[in-house]
């Protein structure tokens, strides 16, 4: 006799039976995202402390291109929509729809990263380097870490497209798409915070 109740078909089981009744992969992903809050919280706090510390080089208000960054933010926000449509298609076992929306999401993410590279280059040309000031160091560290997260997300999305095309996913495909979707949405919500605190609220 088991002394632990086994729950089946709870909200996130996706065909697994576990002692919690939930998918272990999904619990692990949510725990990981909770820990990521601490990472980005530290980086955002550091930026908030140091954004006014400019002895030499341009100040925040002089290097930010708000219209350009607004478009980038909109692109990343819309990639969350395409990602959730990919998850929806995966739940309906629509492989064509899933790969289509995953590819669109990756392209939107790549557009965002391309915009960030352009923005960094423009800032560097205006005299703001990584070691120019505490503002520059904290800004490039925060937005750079976010950019790396988006890039990792794009790699995961494209890998997933390849794996789906080869039909190589063991177990529940919808759960795998959903897990990568959770990571992608998290990257989006972090940018929602960065866009407001870093770009829109002046130092």
């Amino acid at each position, binding site marked *: 006799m088991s002394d632990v109740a086994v729950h089946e078909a709870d909200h996130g089981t996706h065909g697994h039976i576990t002692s919690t009744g939930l998918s272990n992969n*999904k619990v692990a992903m949510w725990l990981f995202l909770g820990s990521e809050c601490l990472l980005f919280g530290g980086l955002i706090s550091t930026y908030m402390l140091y954004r006014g510390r400019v002895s030499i080089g341009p100040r925040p208000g002089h290097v930010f291109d708000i219209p350009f960054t607004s478009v980038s933010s909109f692109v990343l926000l819309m990639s969350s929509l395409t990602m959730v449509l990919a998850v929806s298609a995966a739940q309906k076992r629509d492989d064509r729809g899933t790969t289509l929306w995953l590819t669109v999401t990756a392209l939107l993410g790549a557009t965002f990263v391309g915009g960030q590279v352009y923005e960094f280059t423009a800032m560097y040309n205006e005299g703001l380097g990584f070691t120019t000031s505490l503002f520059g160091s904290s800004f490039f560290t925060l937005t750079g870490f976010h950019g790396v997260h988006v890039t990792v997300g794009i790699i995961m999305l494209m890998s997933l497209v390849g794996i789906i095309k080869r039909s190589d996913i063991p177990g529940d495909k919808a759960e795998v798409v959903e897990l990568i979707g959770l990571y992608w*949405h998290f990257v989006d919500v972090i940018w*929602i915070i960065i866009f407001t605190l870093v770009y829109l609220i002046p130092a």
Partner: protein
Amino acid sequence: MTVATETHSEHDHSHDDHAEHGMSNAGYIRVAIILAAMTALEVSTYYVDFGAFFLPVLLTLMCLKFFIVVSYFMHLKFDNKLFSFCFYAGLFLAVMVYCIALATFKFFAA
């Protein structure tokens, strides 16, 4: 016997189970339109003088957008509460730790 097994069954019915907990595609598009409108309002604060409401409006919009994405796109609103606990515990810890850290540097007094 302590149960620590994880079995992989056929995923015939799992998709249908999960689809019930999300939204329709039209619902997701409606949420995205709301988020886009809120972003437009945020950006408008750069061009229009909101006076004393500038900071409260921006922070409110930021929080609303955050919770809309987490609740609807990440399905926390429809999923098991344990997932919400895992995420919000980390978020709460982060906010508290860094608010205390910023307070020690007299960030809020400036």
